[in-house]
């Protein structure tokens, strides 16, 4: 009998027993929602209509022609595309700054970690406070530079809402990048940098040719994690603008929430939710494959 496994046969039951409970719980969020969403998305349940008859692909057809949905996706992509690079570069710069010894370094880092552990909803609320047009310090500070009283409606003015959201987001998550990249920079092989110095390479060349490639795996993980989180952005937007003005700052999560829990278009929301899952999964799989290939 050829089976060629590692370990012994009597351990088989044991190992399944160990994963069993966890998988059982995971099925709750892993399989059940998908199945349920699939079912409901083919039904016609709305605020008023409670029949569970199947109506075919109607919801999906509606999905493709729903401008508000695609705009929500666009908003999400825009926010991600702007915030992520800024977080990365800023985090990298901060990491480089704190890399070598500095008096009080531990205290600085301990303080800089705090924004990450604050609840995103609190973060949003805080920035709502800061951006408040009359009582917030930001307008006050801008007023000092402008020389006159400035009343900017950060949470209402269509030109200002995106900067506001992005600022709150960057404030909260740059320290995350910073910590990750700090550890990564710290683990770069010193002897490679020293060899480059002996070879006559300047700081920038060393940085781009040796340091960056060395921390590329960590950067990739960081970008993946944050990219995904940005795609699911909800709390900060909700606290600052609730997706407004109108639907201008609706991210895909906000859109889904409103459709499902404010307008109670249950079946349509199910279709949207499925779309989001599919989109995200393909994106993740594509990226993971790219990362595997890169190795």
């Amino acid at each position, binding site marked *: *009998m*050829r089976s*060629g*496994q*590692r*370990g*012994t*046969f009597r351990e088989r039951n044991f190992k399944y027993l160990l994963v069993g409970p966890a998988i059982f719980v995971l099925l709750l969020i892993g399989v059940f929602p998908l199945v349920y969403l699939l079912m409901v998305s083919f039904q016609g349940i709305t605020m008023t209509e409670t029949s569970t008859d199947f109506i075919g692909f109607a919801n999906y057809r509606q999905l493709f022609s729903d401008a508000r949905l695609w705009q929500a996706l666009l908003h999400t992509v825009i926010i991600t595309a702007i915030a992520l690079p800024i977080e990365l570069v800023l985090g990298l710069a901060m990491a480089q700054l704190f890399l070598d010894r500095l008096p009080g370094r531990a205290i600085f880092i301990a303080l800089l970690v705090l924004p990450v552990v604050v609840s995103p909803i609190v973060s949003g609320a805080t920035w709502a406070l800061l951006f408040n047009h009359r009582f917030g310090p930001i307008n006050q500070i801008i007023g000092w530079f402008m020389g006159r009283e400035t009343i900017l409606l950060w949470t209402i003015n269509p030109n200002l809402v995106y900067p506001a959201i992005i600022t709150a987001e960057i404030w909260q998550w740059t320290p995350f990048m910073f910590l990750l990249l700090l550890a990564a920079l710290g683990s770069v092989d010193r002897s490679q940098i020293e060899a480059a110095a002996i070879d006559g390479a300047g700081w920038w060349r060393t940085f781009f040719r040796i340091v960056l490639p060395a921390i590329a795996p960590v950067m990739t993980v960081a970008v993946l994690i944050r990219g995904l989180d940005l795609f699911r952005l909800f709390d900060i937007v909700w606290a600052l603008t609730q997706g407004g003005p109108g639907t201008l700052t609706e991210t895909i999560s906000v859109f889904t929430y409103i459709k499902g829990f404010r307008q109670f278009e249950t079946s349509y929301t199910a279709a949207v939710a499925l779309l989001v899952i599919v989109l995200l999964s393909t994106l993740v799989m594509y990226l993971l494959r790219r990362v595997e290939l890169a190795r």
Partner: protein
Amino acid sequence: MADLRISALHKYYGNVHAVRGIDLEIPAGEFTVLVGPSGCGKSTLLRTIAGLEDANEGTIEIGGQVVNHLPPRERDIAMVFQNYALYPYMKVFDNIAFGLRSRHTPKNEIEPRVRRAAQMLAIDHLLDRYPRELSGGQLQRVAIGRAVVRSARLYLFDEPLSNLDAQLRDEMRGEIKRLHQELGKTMIYVTHDQVEAMTMADRIVLLRDGIIEQAGAPLELFERPATRYVAGFLGSPAMNFIDANLVTAGDTLALRLNDGAGLALPQRRTANLRTRVDRPVVLGVRPEHIGPATQGERPGLARYTAIIELLQPTGSRTYATFDLGGTRAVAELQAHDVSTINQQIELSIDMNRVVLIDPATNRVLS
């Protein structure tokens, strides 16, 4: 102590046939060394004996009891691992006592047994320390102590000295051998180092690609190897292998090398070789059997004129590299026999001790 019997053992890892039909009988109380290059299956075999792996086919009997279906803790064995496997957060005393505690040995018995084991290994002054405070050699003694304290019927060692430096290894080899003499238990020892195998074993089992190449007492494998592989594996520096042709030379046979030189064989060795005349053969000669030519002919010694290419002095001996019949060979000379390279020297090869190998089967011709 107990004897060990393995019959027709096979072990697969996925598609890899790691152990391919091993039959082995080890009498009780013997020190057996499983030796071979990486990937030969020796560690797999040991782990299967321990019960950390399941055999796919075949039986393992310890003390006459078939143990295939038993988990490790029921086989009454003790094991010493390559990287010590000590618990870093426990003191040395607790590390050694760990196995006793798991079997619910009464408390008043644990302490004297631990102390006795520690004394046997000269680490009783370290019982209160933590592993991180100890050196490599001390850590290995603790690992051995943990095995010894258990009084098992079979002891397994999985390359325990690989992580130590050369000097420490020499010291620990002697310690383990002394331990075996004192305890008298059946011990199976895995290593890739042929020096360890030669110095420690009552019996060597040389493995290659999952099968036993040859098993027997160390000197038996050394002086009467069965195959080219065994001949080349044991002995340091390794045996020299030279291509040659078997030809007649007067009333005896000789080896004609590729450069035309001839080396005559002593007559008594030619008995079974007459049928192989005029066929290629591989000459196997150990460096220590090549020496400087002395005055006068001695029976069995063949002369060869060589030019030394490289010298590696070790103090008492010097290893000289030279071309022997078209192949680079090494001779072990006394330090004062030769001092410069590119110097011509007369060598004599002890043809009583060489081995002849059939190039087609790689088996040693008797």
